[in-house]
């Protein structure tokens, strides 16, 4: 009877699926609840940006004046200087009790100045704000252009003050880890555990071809991936509705952004099944599949670090699941959807081809 293996897979695994389903629902609905608090604290921080001002000279070689609002109960101030907004290579430019400093502009490049207040000797300094020598630039916005972050947005600059930006980082930034690794684990174990628990002999002594066996398992995984996606959609939509944020992002965009990840999950499924067929062990298969997912992620992230590394992105499956395109640009990339779907199908075909040739171990 067609679909029996699919049905049995869902039936025997329903408890685990239910727990995972609840977890997804809680995460997706819960994470957006944090947004209002996050927005308020970020707004406070951004206001701090105006607390530090920088007056540039009119002609070459003039003096720069940096001044800031004094902080109550501050004993002294510290100014850090760096050519990067991240301040990772900052040097101390000033330390003292003044609330303004003047110095000669004897450089051409863009520099950043972070001002910190020292409250007392024992506690860490408090950041008052950051200013830049580049006119009209907001250092806080620039922080978001850091390649490590832009990996999540496909290079778009989004504001974390909007729910769209928040979702991109805080939800989608780890959704692939939760869903991707869960699907990877399941897709390996639905097949490899049949090998490990010695069920393969009895399964394949029934009038079932190996192709049908694999396709039914893939069918079960497709249903699980779809359910996972639908639960996340419901959770996100519900969560956003509860904080009255559905006017900022449409339900359709939520639906499409997660749905565009379905073929992404199917590719992971196909890779998981392939490793299960190749190695016939849950642990080995899972290790290899997890390594695949992380490698793809790093390829995509590193590809964004420099133009010359861009090629890395094109061979990463993460490039073809552009959720931010749907969320930020309102554009569903059907081409990418097709590419990932075709890739999943090709991998399943390869998987069947290998499985039909392999000896079933005792």
């Amino acid at each position, binding site marked *: 009877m067609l679909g029996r293996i699919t049905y049995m897979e869902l039936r025997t695994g329903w408890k685990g699926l239910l727990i995972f389903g609840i977890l997804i629902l809680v995460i997706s609905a819960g994470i957006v609840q944090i947004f209002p608090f996050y927005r308020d604290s970020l707004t406070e921080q951004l206001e701090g940006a105006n607390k530090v001002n920088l007056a540039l000279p009119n002609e070459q070689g003039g003096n720069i004046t940096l001044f800031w609002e004094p902080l109550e109960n501050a004993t002294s101030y510290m100014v850090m200087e760096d050519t990067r907004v991240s301040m990772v290579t900052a040097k101390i430019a000033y330390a003292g009790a003044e609330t303004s400093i003047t110095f000669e502009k004897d450089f051409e490049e863009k520099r950043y100045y972070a001002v910190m207040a020292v409250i007392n000797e024992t506690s860490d300094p408090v950041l008052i704000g950051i200013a830049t020598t580049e006119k009209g630039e907001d250092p806080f916005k620039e922080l978001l252009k850091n390649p490590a972050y832009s990996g999540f947005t496909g290079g778009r600059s989004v504001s974390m003050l909007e729910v769209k930006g928040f979702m991109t980082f805080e939800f989608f930034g780890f959704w692939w880890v939760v869903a991707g690794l869960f699907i990877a684990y399941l897709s390996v174990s639905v097949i490899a555990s*049949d090998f490990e628990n010695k069920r393969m*002999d009895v399964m394949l*002594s*029934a009038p079932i071809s190996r192709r049908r066996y694999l396709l039914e398992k893939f069918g079960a995984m497709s249903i699980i991936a779809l359910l996972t996606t639908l639960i996340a959609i419901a959770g996100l939509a519900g969560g956003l509705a509860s904080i009255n944020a559905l006017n900022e992002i449409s339900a359709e965009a939520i639906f499409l952004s997660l749905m565009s990840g379905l073929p992404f999950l199917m590719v992971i499924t196909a890779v998981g099944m392939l490793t299960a067929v190749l190695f016939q062990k849950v642990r080995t298969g899972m290790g290899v599949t997890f390594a695949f997912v992380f490698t793809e992620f790093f390829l995509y992230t590193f590809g964004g670090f420099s133009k010359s590394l861009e090629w890395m992105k094109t061979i990463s499956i993460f490039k073809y699941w552009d959720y931010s395109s749907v969320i930020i640009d309102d554009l569903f990339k059907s081409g990418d959807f097709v590419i990932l779907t075709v890739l999943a199908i090709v991998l399943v075909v390869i998987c069947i081809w290998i499985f039909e040739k392999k000896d079933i171990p005792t």
Partner: protein
Amino acid sequence: MVQEKVIVIENLTKMYGNHVGVKDLDLSVNKGEIMGFLGPNGAGKTTTIRTCLALIAKTAGEITIFGLDSHKDAVAIRKKIGYLPGDFGLIPSVKVKSYLKYLLSLRECNSTKKMVSLAERLELDLDRKTHELSKGNKLKVGIVQALMADQELIIMDEPSGLDPLVQQEFYRILREEKKHGKTVFISSHNLAEVESVCDRVAIIRKGQLVVVEDIRVLREKTGKVLEVEFSDPVNIAELKLEGVSEIHQDNGRFILTVHENLDGVIGAVSNHRILNMTLKSYSLEQLFLKYYAEAENQKRGGK
């Protein structure tokens, strides 16, 4: 009368890299018989069986089952086969009944009647959870699933480990299956275990077939081994009776190979006070020695 053959294996070779699984094996199983497939562990029994079911690919040779190619027509063949693997795995945490029903549905069979009656006869509780089962009960599940869909050919790989009473019931079931025209191919590493149920046995060793013999002929050829221990000293000459081919003395214990006249021998033995007495079949190793010696003699005689 030409026997209709259900399984025909010709020149089967299966290599695992450099290791020989089975080499140039020729074997056929007739319709309606119970064929025993004997050999020590690692002799190639499981390899042969699993090649028949296309679970592993063959290196060379041909296997036809019901006149169909074992690999090309594997799915069609499996519709007619009930199989108990040597290592039978269960889905954990489901009821035995659910698992069996699942396997029934994979075999495109809807009737649970036979499943229920088999479980009853083998004293298997269908409402138990699979992970709670003992080794013997797991084997019962395996036996039930191999027989429940009423298939024409039943292949069983070493169904041993049942309680003696259940084992007897199991053999009764196999004989009934035979009566209904089913063919049974059953492997074992213990001759005594299957000789009461088999019509013929094939003996395999180190991947090669040693002999295929009718069970009655085998019994006549090998005889029985009678071990007897007396309380008083007995002269060995007294035991040189009709039908006894060999006698070994081991302290007070006598080991007799008896081919015929078993009642006469026992009668003679019982003239003395007996401390202990056992009647056994030949062990496989003894059988091999016998058949090898025979083959060697024939070779020498031929030269």
